[in-house]
């Protein structure tokens, strides 16, 4: 039975939820999970004081967090395997520096989704993050590898100092995307004005993005057929770095022009 933590009371302060990752919960029964201490503001609180725990940590490493989790930061941070499903909005730094596994957020994500820790250069290095709603600012900051897929929109500054990897926002990517991007890919399902450090290259049907969109569809987001068939505009940048990154923008309006 999948380990499920259902929020029963809002915490008095923001919670550092990084200990709640599948690999650390493997084989733990409900009481052991309830005893896990979480940082909450300047204090510690037992997971059992905040969540109703059912099931147990399984070999499949699946974990469900349910409830309004906007006060919970660092959900799935540094996870390397398994799957977390967050059924509700989550706080900031979800999936920060994760290196593998899957984090599915059925709601909105806060700022710095899949990003680097403060002061760190490298953020997410592997795995897949799927957000059914919107994501906050600086999603994928410092990202090196992996996939961040957002069903709605990302906030401003997505892909900040991105090294590689892919950020897809079906609803569109916010302003100032890809600042300092070296080799990463950002794909925006709606119009976007790239930074001046990006240069328009062409309009084409990117085969790798098509594969990624099919993967995103497989992961449960609704990807319109129009996005699969393209075309997409390609902008190269950031020229202040290697200029080997890209912003792909769905180019619906020019279809057939």
């Amino acid at each position: 039975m999948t380990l499920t933590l259902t929020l029963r009371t809002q915490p008095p302060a923001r919670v550092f939820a990084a200990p709640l990752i599948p690999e650390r919960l493997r084989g733990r029964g409900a009481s052991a999970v309830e005893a896990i201490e979480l940082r909450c503001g300047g204090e510690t609180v037992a997971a059992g004081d905040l969540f109703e725990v059912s099931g147990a940590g399984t070999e499949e490493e699946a974990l469900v967090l349910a409830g309004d989790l906007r006060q919970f930061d660092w959900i799935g941070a540094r996870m390397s395997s398994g799957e977390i499903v967050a059924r509700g909005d989550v706080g900031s730094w979800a999936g920060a520096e994760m290196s593998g596994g899957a984090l599915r957020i059925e709601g909105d994500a806060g700022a710095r989704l899949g990003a680097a820790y403060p002061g760190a250069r490298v953020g997410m290095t592997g795995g897949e993050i799927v957000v059914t709603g919107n994501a906050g600012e600086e999603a994928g900051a410092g990202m090196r590898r992996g996939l961040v897929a957002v069903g709605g929109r990302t906030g401003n500054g997505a892909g900040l100092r991105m090294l590689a990897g892919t950020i897809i926002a079906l609803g569109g990517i916010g302003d100032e995307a890809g600042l300092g991007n070296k080799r990463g890919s950002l794909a925006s399902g709606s119009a976007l004005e790239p930074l001046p450090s990006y240069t328009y290259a062409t309009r084409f049907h990117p085969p790798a993005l098509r594969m990624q969109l099919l993967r995103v569809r497989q992961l449960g987001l609704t990807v319109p057929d129009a996005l699969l068939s393209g075309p997409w505009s390609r902008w190269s940048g950031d020229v202040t770095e290697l200029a080997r990154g890209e912003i792909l923008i769905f180019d619906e309006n020019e279809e057939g022009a």
Partner: protein
Amino acid sequence: MSGYLLGDTDVDDTFAEAFPMRYARVVITAATDGWALEAARSMTGFATSVIGCKCEAAIERALASDETPDGRPGIGVLLFAMDREGVGKRIVERVGQSVMTCPTTACFDGLPGADSTSPLGATLRYFGDGFQASKVIAGQRYWRIPVMEGEFLVSESVGVGRGVGGGNLVIGAGDEDVALAAAEAAAGAMRGEGIALPFPGGIVRSGSKVGALTSKSMPASTNHQLAPTLRAQADDTLVPDGVGALFEIVIDGVSEEAVREAMRRGLHSAAGAGATRVTAANFGGKLGQFHFPLSDLRDPP
């Protein structure tokens, strides 16, 4: 040779002798099934025999959009060689020259999870001259090679499996038209999942023997024993009475079972299409690890 009758067709009491080979499967996709087919035909051209072409390759089957990794129409291609290194070299050459060059195509590994792999995109990426990029999608790495049209997407590597090469049927009839029609029917029935028929249209008219009577340097020469024009000339002729033409179908497969069942389909189709005689080529059983007695194929598929 006394064998059995399948309708009006005499089936010899003999066997096909086949060899272990290594193989790769690639899935070629394109914007249209027509372009996928163009690439597949080009890739499998001049790949009839390892003796002369260093590999044997053929179209396995057409793939619908919902059967391919990128949701576009595709073609499955099987390529066989004697060892993993051979498969690796030939697959890079042929995908590089025949698939990457073909408009709108992408090329994927068709044996995911195989125990053994060989580089594909990992080698072809250098054509990108430093502008190539890779993406890991669902745990698989793909290379994006910039080309004049846009980008060529190719799997990092291909799986290499253990298959069987050299299964065969030899189909004869009183005249060449009937023999060819029977061979065509057999080839059509044999094609499918796990099967490659590497010769033109799946059919070879110039079956060979190992070595030559007149030269020590020839690796192979005409199967004079089955050449009808030499019936009165060659003392060791094996052309049966009443047979005026013979065609061979060479079968490479992903397993012994796949080859056997393809031979079964081919034998019964040939019999139904007018073949008067069906036999098989072997080397006395001394060279090949796999033997396929025609007596095992009596029951219909």
